[in-house]
């Protein structure tokens, strides 16, 4: 029988791991694609360096959060040497569990009337 892993066992996630999981939540991406998505989504606030990105990817592969995709996009559209990654079902559940954990923290902050930053969110978010 397949081992059922508890997503909460991996929490809390590091910011880099959570950003990578979110970048892969809607589509498969290669390393540079992940970096671009994170930068765009955070309005340039978060920039993953190559070391942080691949160090995190290595641990996420080992933890079963992501996997390397065997499918390749249209060769005419992209470099065939790039490796693409996608989030696993377990990775999805861990992302959800982390989001819930953060949501409850935000709820606690709101309940205690902690002032939130008024900086505008990036366009399109």
């Amino acid at each position, binding site marked *: 029988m397949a081992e059922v892993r508890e997503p909460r066992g991996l929490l809390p996630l*590091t*910011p*880099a791991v959570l950003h990578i999981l979110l970048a892969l939540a809607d589509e498969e991406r290669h*390393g*540079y694609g992940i*970096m671009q998505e994170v930068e765009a989504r955070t309005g340039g606030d978060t*920039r993953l*360096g*190559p*070391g*942080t*990105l*691949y*160090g995190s*990817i*290595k641990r996420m592969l080992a933890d079963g959060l992501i996997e390397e995709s065997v499918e390749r996009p249209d060769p005419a559209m992209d*470099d065939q*040497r*790039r*490796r693409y990654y996608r989030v696993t079902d377990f990775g999805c559940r861990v992302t959800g569990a982390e989001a819930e954990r953060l949501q409850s923290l935000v709820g606690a902050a709101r309940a205690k009337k902690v002032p939130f930053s008024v900086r505008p969110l990036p366009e399109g978010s």
Partner: protein
Amino acid sequence: MSGSGGEDRSISERVYRVLLRAYPREFREMYGRQMAQVFRDLLRENERRSRVAGCPRFWIRTTKDLAATAFIERRRTVRLRSLVPLAILLGMLITLVDDSPGWDDTGVSAAMVFTCAGLLGALHSLRPWLWALSVGLWIPVVGVAYHHNYEALLALVVAFAGAYSGAVASRALGTV
């Protein structure tokens, strides 16, 4: 300043490939090529934005990322068993220097104990107490046993402070 963007890019890429040697070989073999490719992409993007390939700000960011993550990856490959004899040896060497005739610089001895215990604590942050004892035990042993100098016990306090500081710094780095 820049002759041609392509030439600057090529030099930067070569420098980055050399810097990748800071990572353990296994990590380099798995991700070195991908990291070099991502670096190339970032370099082009940076060139588009600032019209210079590899400006100082870009390199500072890149080097910071590389140094921190190479340290983390190296730390994972260090084995506990190989570190304990090294820690004991360092502790004994410091004691030898501290106990040598004419040596009267307690501050330097304390700094050596703190630094060695701190570096070991940073390399293997799960057992700071082990590094504190391995490095800091010898000065008190010699001080108390041979010279009846109980102030030498302070070396242990310094060693514990160093080892736990190193471990805390290392854990903070691990959350990158």
